[in-house]
């Protein structure tokens, strides 16, 4: 009995070392995924983010699958993903934006410089909708199906290789 107990520390240590070694080989995932996938969008109604486009509400997500893009004019990766959003728009995807903690003038400026792929942009001054759908940063893009159910979450800026993935997700959300 005592013999066995003496091996216990080594066994515990081996377990830890194995776990740590495995975790070192894993990519460190810094993203917090939303657990709202498969759930209907929570009800919301946001004022327009600037004069050019109407605001956004839950009711706007009906008819066909759409993209919900969480972004902000002060966010650098949002500039990087602007061309990809433009591509998606040209493919006939309807993108509804939600601008986080943003000012109308800044939003208008940003769209002037980097293009406007949106049909509507709601202004979320206190991250209310962002929190309600489980998003933890900008930019993030959600695929919403025709019944208003959240189907897919893309965290971070959309790279060219992500475009087909989003298109397929939209297809599947039909």
């Amino acid at each position, binding site marked *: 009995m005592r*013999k066995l107990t003496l*091996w216990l*520390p080594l066994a515990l*240590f081996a377990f830890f*070392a194995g*776990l*740590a070694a495995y975790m*070192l080989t894993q990519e460190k995932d810094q993203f917090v995924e939303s657990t709202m996938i498969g759930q209907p969008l929570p009800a919301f109604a946001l004022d327009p983010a600037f004069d050019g486009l109407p605001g956004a509400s839950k009711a706007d997500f009906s008819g066909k699958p759409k993209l919900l893009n969480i972004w902000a004019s002060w966010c650098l990766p949002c500039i990087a993903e602007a061309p990809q959003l433009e591509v998606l728009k040209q493919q006939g995807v309807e993108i509804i934006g939600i601008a986080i903690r943003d000012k109308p003038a800044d939003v208008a400026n940003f769209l002037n410089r980097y293009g406007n792929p949106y049909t509507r942009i709601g202004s979320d001054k206190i991250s209310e909708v962002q929190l309600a759908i489980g998003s933890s940063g900008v930019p993030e893009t959600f695929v919403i199906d025709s019944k208003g159910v959240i189907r897919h979450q893309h965290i971070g800026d959309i790279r060219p290789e992500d475009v087909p993935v989003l298109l397929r997700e939209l297809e599947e959300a039909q």
Partner: protein
Amino acid sequence: MIAEIGLAALWLAAALAVLQMISGAAALRAGPGETNPLAIYARPAAVVQAFLAVLAFAMLLRSFAVTDLSLKLVATNSHSMKPFIYKLTGTWGNHEGSMLLWVGVLAASGGLLAAFERRLPELTMHATLAVQGFVALGFYAFLLLSSNPFERLPVPAVEGNGLNPLLQDIGLAIHPPTLYAGYVGLSVAFSLAMGALLTREVNPAFARVMRPWVLGAWVLLTLGITAGSYWAYYELGWGGWWFWDPVENASLMPWLAATALMHSVSVLAARDALRTWTIMLGVLAFSMSMLGTFLVRSGVLTSVHAFAVDPERGAFILGLLGLYIGGAFTIFALRAGAVAEGKRFAVTSREGALVFNNVMLSAILAIVLLGTLYPLLTEAFDVRVSVGPPYFNPAGAIFAIPMLLVMAVGPLLRWKSDKPARIQFELMLIAALVIGMIALVSFFGQFPLLPLLGLGLAAALAVAAFLPLRGRSLKRVPVATWGMVLAHFGIAVSLFGMACEGAFSEERLAAVAPGGTEQIGDFAVTLEAVTPIAGPNWTAMEARLAVSQDGGAPVILTPQARSFWSPPQSTSESALLTKWNGQLYAVIGNQAEDGRWQVRIWWKPFVTFIWYGGLLIGFGGILSIVGRMRVDLKRRAASTKGAQRRADVEALGPAAPQPAE
């Protein structure tokens, strides 16, 4: 040139570590009675190595002092415009520099051990030095192969990147080096434990050699944690002093193990009991400090303090961890069965109380370890969870409360066996204090359970700490006993501070226009003005807050919101008003569009006692070391005198019969 000297010294030191290891191991292989010719090199190798490693560190210090931008490490972590003191402290504010500091201290303590320790059997000493050399070699390899601090840039940089502003603080100057020195002290304890285990010399003599190292490491860890907690308190700007963050836990775990080890080694020294347990704790304490290093540097866990993260280094440290700790536990499993348990004792005895608290400390260690590593475990299954204060506080308290109660009583008990009836009065007094204090505080209002219990225990412990002195002539109490009394009193003081902070803190967050006044506790805080000011490598908005207590003369506090430009980052510099019975903590935030300023103010009664207590605990430890050393030197002097007398008698012996002839 300077950097090349440092690098050369480091390589030479590594070579000497190999020599020390081989020489020490050779001594073990010699048969009984013989001495291996190689064995004589172990001690000198350790001493010279100490000089070389310290020299290497001094060279790096000099490169940082003059901001030698041809060094990669300096260019990435320093800046010519940085205040001089932070250029120096920046030496260990990065991974490579802090590892060099670590090996510097490691080699220095190995050198001290080799130069001055003569009490151990020579064989055990050699085994110890061999282990010490082996440990040092791993860290030299780590530095030289994967994190060379002296790497040159092909083209010297024009300007450095600067140091993380959170680290540009005097707290950083003392906190990490103190902790490292503590970790390293535990490595000596580890080497001694392995040496004793390998040569089957686990006995009181060995415990007496190990004790000052454990005590010293423990004092440094105590002070390091205390300084770190105070640094987080005033630098992070939200008044928290302990976050149960992985990096904080990484420093707490070795402390818990060292606390247990310190008590168990005392039992071994005084009573020749707890042999295996002491060895086990010796290995555990060092493995906790290495585990801490691994967690902090590998970035497997997210932490506020993670600033030197690199998975490749993590793999290297994990390799070392596997080698040393895996090896040590294997030897432990193979050898410890052969070590007898030592003398036995009754439940109600000094040893009984110490064993109880040793087990409780280990249980708390297990909880902290579990809570810290659990998120890592679930991440392996792609599930992310958070474990925080609401878990650690109650789970730790389950074991801490009985431990603190036994701590109050333990020092009153006699060694080997005692009757509870003998200390009836003391037991009643302690119980009355706990219950009385809790009843008194509950009378004044509703407070959370843990702080309430903390207050009761603190009151009882504060009195109980001095009970061992009752009925003794104070002049004749040994210095080491005073050390224990002070350290235990320090626990009470610290606990009192924690409980008060938890139960009575007041918070005021408000948007204040210049000229506006906020009331918190007895204090009226008026925002007089906010002005921009500039520092050497930052600019700031500085608020002038006039604080007046009960309408008295106002004191000016100047919290700042600082923006550093290299690297670009902003920090809140809190302003503290320290009173004997607490601290007023003020922070200035951003300006709202209507021109009002965000002001955060806390009144934290007796919060300073947390760190006063930490200092008392450390001071108690120092007294204990001094006391033990004095006794030891006296004993050594007495034994040399005795030996001399015996030699004299022997010299006289053959001469004595002569007259008869």
